């Protein structure tokens, strides 16, 4: 472990707590084919506990599919997904639903329920999965909405929100059950730079408050290196590199270099 693991890179200030136990999520030799095409081709990966892990790679590299495996939304053709040593692929549905209470997930488009307003969207998991009273639910939802800066928008419906507000509302919903592990699928894609940075700093702020284990898919290269501790590079369903952010940034691997710099010339030719 280097000194970097002890200091929060995004803010560079606060000391991080030392993680208890080994990796939060382990993917072991994961294989998945969709429509006859191998999307994941033998993924072996450890997600460090209580750190922000960024997953980068070209579009179609299998990032989203891998993230969905981590929460059991997809079942692999082969391999195992271990969350604290429990193999998700062997769980029955009720067991899977129970273990998912430890997860929060933010989807690419936010995936807010169109028929519910923002407040009800955030309150939804509480209403469905807990026996909390109305007052308690209101208090928790208002707290989460305040954290993401949406105090006054509770009455609005998803189609009345801007892209940034949708992501923030979805983030509030993902966190409302106090998860240990937060999975974020492209939280910033399609947003303008100012809103993008405000979302990223919000995520970082949340991280400091709750010390989640975070896995974040992102295309914000090279910015993402400043907002994460650990970076995973994925290409063609394989892990190219999984290392602390600094190390990945300084990597001499030609594909990683091309990805970071966005070069047209390099090991990958698209045209």
């Amino acid at each position, binding site marked *: 472990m280097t000194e970097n693991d002890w200091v929060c890179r995004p803010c560079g200030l606060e000391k991080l707590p030392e993680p208890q136990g080994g990796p939060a999520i382990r993917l072991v030799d994961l294989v998945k084919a969709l429509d006859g095409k191998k999307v994941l081709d033998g993924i072996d990966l450890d997600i460090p506990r209580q750190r922000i892990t960024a997953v980068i790679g070209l579009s179609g590299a299998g990032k989203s599919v891998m993230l*969905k495996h981590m*929460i059991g*939304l997809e079942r692999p053709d082969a391999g195992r997904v271990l969350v604290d040593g429990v193999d998700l692929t062997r769980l029955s*549905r009720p067991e*899977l*639903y*129970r273990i*998912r*209470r430890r*997860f*929060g*997930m933010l*989807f*690419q*488009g936010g*995936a*807010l*329920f*169109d028929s519910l307003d923002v407040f009800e969207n955030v309150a*939804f*998991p509480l209403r*469905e*999965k807990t026996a909390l009273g109305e007052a308690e639910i209101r208090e928790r939802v208002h707290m989460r909405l305040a954290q993401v800066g949406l105090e006054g928008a509770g009455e609005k419906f998803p189609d009345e929100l801007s892209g940034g507000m949708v992501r923030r509302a979805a983030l509030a919903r993902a966190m409302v*059950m106090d998860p240990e592990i937060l999975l974020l699928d492209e939280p910033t894609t399609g947003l303008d730079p100012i809103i993008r940075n405000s979302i990223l700093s919000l995520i970082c702020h949340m991280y400091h408050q709750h010390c989640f284990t975070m896995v974040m898919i992102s295309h914000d290269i090279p910015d993402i290196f400043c907002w994460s501790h650990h970076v995973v590079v994925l290409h063609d369903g394989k892990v190219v590199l999984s290392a602390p952010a600094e190390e990945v940034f300084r990597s001499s691997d030609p594909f990683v270099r091309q990805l970071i710099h966005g070069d047209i010339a390099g090991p990958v030719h698209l045209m």
Partner: protein
Amino acid sequence: MLALAEAIGTRVLRKIRAMGGMTIFLWASLSSAVAPPVPLRHVVKQVHFIGVKSLFVIVLTASFTGMVLGLQGYYTLRKFAAEGLLGSAVALSLIRELGPVLSALMVTGRAGSALTAEIGIMRIGEQIDALETMGIDPIRHLVSPRMLGALVSVPLLASIFDVIGILGGYLVGVKLLGLNQGVYFGQMEASVMLKDVSDGLLKSIAFGLIISWVCTFKGYHTARGAEGVSQSTTSAVVLSSVLVLIGDYLLTSVLL
């Protein structure tokens, strides 16, 4: 030759797999529909959507169906000097056949397509995945209430269709063509048996099941963006209409 056989085999296997998938889906949604606690609030919402909001179109089609039955029936029966049987002709064809079938087709067009589109949009917007990640069974949460709603709404709509249609026939036969009112209803009461009514009811329950099953299944298994939603909506409407008509024939031949 072998290639042809293989092509046929692939298609057959795919169809069988799809049918198996549909059956498992039906089983999952029905079993979670009856597992307590029954999500009554959601079911009420679906009865409102499938039933109450279809009422207008049902009343409209029912009254015109009844009126045209009155007109056609009168014209045909007069050839045999049996206009007195108009009441029975209108009531029997409505209760046994047209009420359940036409109301099912109307519900398919108005509510079934919307069910598919709604669930399909939730699928492509990853809202169904979001439910899953929250540990909520999307079939129990989305599909079962819609199925129960259709099972309640469609038979009631068919009954309303029957009554409105009989009144439509009354309007034409008695008020317009001058048939005796007592003859119209008297013949009707004499010829309609309880079995006719219960057969019609059974049919419309079966149709409610078919519609909600096909439409939610197609929505639930939507893929590939907005185009996928339009595709699954179209195929849901076509498939459930066809299945309603096929089911109608099969049920009629079994029940008669």
